[in-house]
């Protein structure tokens, strides 16, 4: 009686203790809390430019504004003039090329192909004024466009095909009086609309981020931390942290999640150990283009169809162009699952004049492998397509696309690839054989934004699975538990288990059979006796 009472009390206590041990709930992440408190503080604006006497005037030209900026911020223009935003190129060491200058000036892509020859239009995204050909003076500080990055009034915008000059209707005085730290709108003006429309190129950077939900982007969500680009892409002397490998090549000055979150951000060490080979983005960005579609393919070869001699367009239900006579056929996708590659922060690019080595032509090559200690698995958007190339010289062609008027060899006016190729290649100083064709191309865009909430991040079994739909199904060079197995071992193992079962079954059956026969025999003999 007493004994059972003691046992009962003991068991009850044990159960209570176990409940406490195993049901602790989610612990507070103090590191995250600290970060949140740090970033939730609104920026304190130390000066009010609208009160400065220097800015109380009508500016005749945007260069006047720049001169006024420089009159106080005396050396800032020199910093700007060393940046890639100004130079459109960086000096980089690239394996196989040596020390070389790479950037928008000489690197091609598989969207609008290249800026050379089309500066009048492309310079909309250059932080300078008056880049209308390849003779732009990169030494002239008057042409630095301070406003495009620092306008806080949302008044400023660059004009279309105005060689980087602002739109005529911009009130320069208002803009000059309301400058400040760059906002999402400033960066987004180019980085959201690159490729000629919203979310065309990146897939993870688009206008929706200006007022997004935290489900779309945990950092920039308006109902979340509402962070701006420069919170992570910090700058020292106008050298902004962060790399985009559509033009960048070196593993330097990158912006990492780890800069704030550290390399062991989880409570669970099994997850923490992933961070040596898996970039944060891989699990935390399950999909991109969450609000608006992004361009996944661009087929230049289909451009040039005309209706009654006039160019036309076909739009899809989202209002995006599916076909343009000027540009060809596009494929758009929304809520896209990224592809995954090994990447060590180093990249090469297709540079004007390079011979075509493989098909599809890799417009940029991301380096990395499992065995490289600097490499991690990163998510990428892969943009495919085809574009014009010189069949004899085996090089990609920079065609002349843009011109004000017809009859200037520009494809967008004259729809003649031959003329556009000739004019374009002459302009960049490369030979053109006269024979063009179209070749398949491929470009990698690392996906870094649209970080999901913790609940929506990629789950273990999405990669650790034998399914062909597994996120890492095609990534090679390593053993991934749950995905990989030796079919020889599995065969031997199954055979071994099967033989054991069979042996046991046969041995057992014989015994059972003999016992039954013996019993029958004894029953028979008993019956006979009766």
């Amino acid at each position, binding site marked *: 009686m007493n004994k059972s009472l003691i046992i009962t009390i003991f068991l009850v206590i044990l159960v209570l203790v176990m409940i406490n041990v195993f049901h602790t709930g989610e612990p507070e992440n103090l590191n995250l809390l600290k970060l949140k408190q740090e970033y939730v503080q609104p920026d304190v604006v130390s000066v009010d430019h609208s009160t400065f006497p220097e800015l109380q005037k009508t500016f005749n030209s945007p260069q006047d504004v720049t001169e006024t900026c420089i009159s106080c911020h005396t050396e800032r223009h020199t910093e700007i003039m060393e940046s890639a935003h100004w130079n459109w190129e960086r000096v980089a060491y690239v394996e196989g090329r040596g020390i070389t200058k790479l950037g928008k000036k000489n690197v091609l892509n598989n969207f609008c192909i290249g800026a050379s020859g089309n500066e009048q239009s492309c310079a909309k995204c250059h932080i300078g004024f008056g880049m209308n050909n390849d003779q732009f003076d990169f030494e002239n500080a008057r042409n630095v466009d301070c406003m495009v990055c620092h306008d806080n009034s949302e008044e400023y915008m660059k004009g279309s095909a105005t060689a980087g000059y602002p739109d005529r209707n911009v009130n320069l005085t208002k803009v000059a009086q309301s400058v400040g730290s760059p906002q999402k709108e400033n960066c987004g003006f180019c980085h959201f609309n690159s490729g000629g429309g919203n979310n065309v190129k990146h897939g993870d950077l688009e206008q929706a981020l200006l007022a997004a939900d935290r489900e779309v982007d945990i950092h920039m969500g308006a109902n979340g931390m509402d962070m701006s680009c420069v919170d992570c892409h910090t700058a020292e002397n106008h050298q902004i942290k962060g790399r985009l490998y559509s033009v960048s090549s070196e593993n330097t000055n990158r912006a990492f999640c780890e800069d704030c979150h550290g*390399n*062991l951000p989880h409570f669970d*060490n099994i997850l923490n*150990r992933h961070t040596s080979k898996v970039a944060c983005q891989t699990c935390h960005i399950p999909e991109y283009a969450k609000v608006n579609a992004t361009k996944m393919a661009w087929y230049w070869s289909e451009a040039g169809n005309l209706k009654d001699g006039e160019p036309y367009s076909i739009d899809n239900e989202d209002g995006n162009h599916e076909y343009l006579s000027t540009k060809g056929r596009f494929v758009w996708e929304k809520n896209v699952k990224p592809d995954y590659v090994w990447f060590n922060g180093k990249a090469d690019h297709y540079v004007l004049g390079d011979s075509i080595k493989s098909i599809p032509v890799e417009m940029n090559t991301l380096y990395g492998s499992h065995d490289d200690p600097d490499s991690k698995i990163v998510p990428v958007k892969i943009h495919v397509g085809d574009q014009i190339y010189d069949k004899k010289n085996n090089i990609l062609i920079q065609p002349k696309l843009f011109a004000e008027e017809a009859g200037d060899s520009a494809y967008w006016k004259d729809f003649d690839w031959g003329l556009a190729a000739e004019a374009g290649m002459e302009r960049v100083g490369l030979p053109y054989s006269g024979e063009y064709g179209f070749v398949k191309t491929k470009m990698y865009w690392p996906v870094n934004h649209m970080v999901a909430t913790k609940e929506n991040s990629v789950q273990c079994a999405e990669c650790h699975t034998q399914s062909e739909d597994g996120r890492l199904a095609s990534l090679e060079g390593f*053993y991934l538990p*749950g995905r990989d197995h030796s079919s020889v*071992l599995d065969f031997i193992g199954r055979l071994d288990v099967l033989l054991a079962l069979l042996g046991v079954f046969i*041995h057992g059956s014989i*015994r059972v059979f003999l016992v039954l026969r013996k019993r029958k025999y004894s029953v028979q003999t008993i019956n006979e006796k009766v």
Partner: protein
Amino acid sequence: MKKVFIYPKFERFWHWTQATLIMFLALTGFEVHGSISVFGFEQAVRFHRISSYALLLLIAFAIFWHITTGEWRNYIPTTKKIKDQIKYYTTGIFKGEKHPTDKNELSKLNPLQKIVYFGFKVVLIPLVVVTGILYMNYKSIDENNIIVISEIPLDILAILHTFGAFLLISFLIVHVYMTTTGETPTSNIKAMITGYEEIEEEIDKQNKSENEK
């Protein structure tokens, strides 16, 4: 028939806990391997890890017990009577012959069991345990919070570990079947539960006479 005490309390506890853990490890392990789907990969990994710690602890206690009690002597392989034992399992058992070896508290295992269990303890379990520990520590976090990756390729560890798991499963199948070959089909299992096994008097008498001599 006479009841003989064969398995002390700890041995029974060790046996059943080890059996449960190994079966649970096989279940979760083959889920990690991708062969089955029960708990989901994440939970399977977690359970596999926790139960592996439990098994390591149990093994530590079991080794201590084997050494201090001298029970390890039961597992010294011998060739004596081994032919008889094989003959018994292949033919004698069907004819209803008697077990060629006696079972008592001092000598629990027949020569065939001695060899198989010796292999189990000295080759199979160490294989699975060592590869398992190396697998678990394939990536580790050092004092400076840097993640260190082992030099031994994961595929080799995984393949050896899985190989051990397959062997363990086939051992389990045969082992469970062999329990039915005692005096009655359930007498061995009963013994492992209660500690007492029913053993025929005749043998006891023989033992006694041998002892008297």
